[in-house]
């Protein structure tokens, strides 16, 4: 990395340059698929040299700051930028007037202004951007811009959105899905109803939004950002700049945490505009408060359920109304709603289902893609219903679930047949059979971490232990006809190979997987993964486990093509087919041992390249009754949560979460375990503490005190009871993405355990302490 004194106008070394394996790597290191290969960027991360956008520098750069609306709903009557421009050190101020191209943008629907100019629709909406010679100057200048508002009544209750005057020319209804499956008149012997609420979880990456824009001599611009979908971002920002796509290049830096989409498109557009206007590099690093205001959150959701069952506990019908608060703009709400509606009954066989789903606009902060979108909210509700149904039937909640579990070949309420492995019953049995953690007893009491933490208020006498279970499912890949495709190139020369693919490694391990694939197919130990930018062919978003499947598939195909190119001449020379040759540890050998050479010798100084695509079989949109084959792949998990609840204070500590997961195939055991532990922790955060609160549309205390994240003391022990490796024949390597499903299931499992400990309904996430108190006496 270069510093302020570097005489260069180009930023240096984003995203690792070439990601080399740690120097300590030797021949004994695990390699190939199924091995716990360590991430190539690990050394740089441990040494603090792995570069994120906030760490970049370019000579002569300006600093940007955004002016954001303090009101959730207001008409802008005047904007005066002169006071900002008058400040010494200010180079440029841009507002809506200065957007040369498309005035509106958005990830699915282009409904969001780059800068609000007439109407403000949510707290924190950008109004102007400033570039100045110092970050403080930029912030002061942004604050000096005069904006006069006519404050309007905000619509903050999504139930009011239906009758409220339209907040947007597109209306308040983003999407409505009425799912009709079976016979509406069927009634069960036993009926339970429930109302559930899920709060606003924020992705809350520790690294806030940041970026560096560098103007190009050809009138274009380069953006160095932690994009998780670089080509989509490039297309979106280029349209707003009024530039051809080719003149905008998005270069992906290290991604400082991604539980949802990165990087805030509004920030990228502002940066690029300022760089284009000033002709100088412009850098922006969002404050923690801005980060909470700028990026999309998980959809706060209201769910009404009615479950019908027969006296034996077999589900007969599920009725549900699901209301997603999209906030001010549509973003990916349509996808979240489709998932919520399709998975509304969970991984259970339900002969009749009637689900009404809506995503509506409000003046609340915009919602968007967060891991497990839609699927997480409904899981909390349908699992709450299963507990309720079990109580009403006097059945063991596990037996009730076991009686209804879905399996391969069953129909979802969308009429899609579950064709992939769906070992739901086996998962549930696996967590059920694990021994429970012992209760701390006797003198070891002081080792017992009580709810409230060390030196908190916990009293062992008031602590009750609860055990709860949950099952859940989530989709992989894009849905409803999204064109899922990725392209990868593999190159081999001498004894090392390189993977070139625009799939962004957000820490989820794609780069490691790509190395493993090439190690496996080409038998070389040293594999580099090239940095990502939009000069490469598109690979699509890093989300929903896509890259394991789609980009992993492209890498594998390209590697196999290279393998054939490498081995064909040898095979021909020895009169045998390529299939009779194996490559391992850099050596090529034939089945009979006659041929034995090295990869380097076989190459003979040549380089071999191949490029391939992977495009899973297409999906279709849900129809007017919520029917259709909308999903490519599904993943399932069962969890058992053990909690300690201080029933006087209502405080909860999750002691342990036991997981059984349907993973298709284990490609990297250590990485897989880490992904599951991470998903559980994020789910525990949703269950117990994470809720970005608003008051009349204004975000309250946007920071890490107002929005607490789980610490090391809040994260439970995670016990992996079983990883079921039923290969999904249509998925690359038969593997299913592992990161999202724990986030979906863990909140429901924790809620179930707190229900068991307290006997309280627990129908709201995160669980508020007042709802986990057991009345005394």
């Amino acid at each position, binding site marked *: 990395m270069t510093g302020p004194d570097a005489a260069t106008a180009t930023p240096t070394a984003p995203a690792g340059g070439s990601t080399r394996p740690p*120097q300590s790597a030797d021949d004994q290191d695990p390699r190939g698929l199924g091995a716990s290969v360590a991430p190539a960027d690990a050394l740089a991360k441990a040494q603090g040299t792995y570069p994120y956008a906030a760490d970049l520098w370019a000579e002569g750069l300006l600093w940007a700051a955004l002016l954001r609306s303090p009101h959730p709903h207001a008409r802008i009557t005047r904007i005066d930028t002169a006071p900002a421009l008058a400040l010494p050190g200010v180079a440029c101020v841009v507002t809506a007037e200065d957007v040369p191209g498309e005035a509106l943008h958005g990830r699915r629907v282009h409904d969001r202004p780059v800068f609000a100019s007439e109407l403000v629709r949510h707290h924190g909406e950008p109004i102007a951007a400033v570039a100045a010679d110092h970050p403080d100057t930029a912030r002061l200048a942004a604050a000096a811009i005069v904006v006069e508002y006519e404050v309007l009544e905000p619509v903050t209750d999504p139930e009011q959105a239906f009758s409220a005057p339209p907040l947007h020319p597109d209306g308040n209804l983003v999407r409505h899905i009425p799912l009709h499956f079976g016979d509406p008149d069927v009634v069960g012997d036993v009926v339970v109803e429930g109302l559930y609420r899920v709060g606003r979880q924020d992705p809350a990456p*520790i690294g806030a939004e940041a970026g560096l824009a560098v103007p190009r001599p050809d009138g274009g611009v380069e953006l160095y950002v932690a994009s998780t979908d670089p080509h989509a971002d490039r297309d979106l920002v280029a349209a707003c700049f009024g530039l051809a796509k080719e003149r905008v290049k998005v270069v992906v830096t290290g991604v400082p945490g991604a539980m949802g989409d990165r990087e805030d498109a509004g920030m990228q557009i502002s940066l690029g505009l300022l760089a284009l206007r000033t002709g100088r590099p412009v850098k922006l690093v969002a404050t923690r408060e801005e980060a909470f205001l700028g990026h999309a959150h998980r959809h706060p959701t209201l769910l009404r359920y009615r479950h019908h069952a027969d006296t034996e506990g077999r589900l007969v019908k599920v009725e549900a109304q699901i209301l997603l608060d999209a906030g001010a703009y549509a973003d990916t709400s349509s996808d979240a709603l489709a998932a919520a509606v399709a998975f509304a009954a969970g991984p259970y066989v339900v002969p009749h289902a009637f689900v009404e789903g809506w995503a509506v606009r409000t003046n609340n902060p915009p919602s968007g893609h967060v891991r497990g979108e839609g699927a997480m909210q409904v899981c909390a509700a349908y699992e709450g219903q299963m507990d309720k149904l079990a109580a009403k039937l006097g059945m063991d909640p596990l037996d009730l679930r076991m009686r209804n579990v879905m399996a391969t070949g069953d129909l979802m309420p969308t009429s899609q047949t579950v064709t992939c492995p769906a070992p739901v019953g086996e998962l549930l049995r696996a967590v059920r059979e694990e021994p429970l953690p012992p209760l701390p007893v006797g003198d070891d009491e002081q080792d017992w971490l009580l709810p409230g933490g060390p030196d908190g208020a916990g009293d062992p006498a008031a602590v009750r232990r609860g055990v709860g279970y949950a099952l859940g499912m989530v989709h992989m890949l894009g849905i409803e006809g999204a064109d899922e495709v990725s392209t990868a190139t593999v190159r081999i020369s001498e004894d090392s190979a390189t993977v070139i693919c625009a799939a962004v490694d957000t820490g989820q391990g794609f780069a490691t997987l790509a190395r493993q694939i090439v190690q496996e197919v080409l038998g070389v130990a040293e594999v580099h993964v090239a940095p990502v930018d939009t000069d490469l062919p598109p690979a699509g978003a890093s989300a929903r486990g896509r890259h394991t499947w789609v980009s992993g598939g492209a890498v594998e195909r390209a590697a196999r093509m290279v393998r054939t190119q490498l081995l064909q001449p040898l095979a021909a020379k020895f009169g045998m087919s390529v299939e009779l040759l194996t490559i391992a540890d850099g050596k090529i050998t034939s089945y009979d041992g006659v041929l034995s050479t090295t990869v380097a010798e076989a190459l003979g100084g040549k380089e071999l390249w191949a490029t391939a695509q992977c495009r899973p079989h297409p999906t279709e949109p849900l129809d007017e009754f919520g029917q259709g084959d909308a999903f490519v792949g599904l993943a399932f998990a069962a969890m058992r949560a053990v909690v300690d609840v201080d029933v006087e204070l209502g405080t909860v500590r999750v002691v342990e979460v036991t997981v059984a997961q349907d993973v298709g195939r284990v490609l990297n055991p250590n990485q897989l375990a880490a992904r599951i*532990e991470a998903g559980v922790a994020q789910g525990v955060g949703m269950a117990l503490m994470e809720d970005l609160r608003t008051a009349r549309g204004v975000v309250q205390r946007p920071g890490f005190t107002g929005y607490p994240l789980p610490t090391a003391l809040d994260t439970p022990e995670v016990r992996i009871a079983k990883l079921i490796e039923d290969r999904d024949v249509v998925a690359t390597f038969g593997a299913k993405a592992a990161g999202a499903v724990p986030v979906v299931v863990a909140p429901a499992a924790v809620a179930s355990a707190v229900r068991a400990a307290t006997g309280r309904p627990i129908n709201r996430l995160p669980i508020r302490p007042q709802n986990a108190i057991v009345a005394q006496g």
Partner: protein
Amino acid sequence: MDSRLLTSAVTLRVNGTVHRLTLDNRSTLLDTLREDLDLTGAKKGCDHGQCGSCTVLVDGRRVNCCLLLTVACDGSEITTVEGLSDGWSLHPVQEAFLARDAFQCGYCTPGQVCSAVGALREMAEGRPSAVTVGTEPPSGAAEIRERMSGNLCRCAAYPNIVRAVGDAAERAAEWWERTP
């Protein structure tokens, strides 16, 4: 206003190198390290001492350097993540983080590593934590979780972080003995 009133001269010893700087009084140590000394290992996560990503060692103690004014550190000895390793020779905590794969996105890692180095020193000195029982040597997972509770990891690599810190405990003590 006289610009001399707005800036101050400070001398810092950072990772063994003495720097004499004239700085805006408003500069935090975090900004000075990142913007003036090109040591971008310490990260800005929240700027309010709530995430621990900016943890460095000042005179051997772990602190959140976003809450320190550089001018108030005049004469201090500062160790950042960059100062823990010497080329390929890593600090035992860094080695343990690598061995345990104790990160995902890596953004909080420099702060975790520095915090662990400080925590292990505090443990070696016998400083109690909130879960320390009597005078028993602290080593359990709960103990380490408590001592590392000032460093948020959104990717939740906590299980491996806790294991790594446990692994490093013994060797870190030797490192401190070697380093005055």
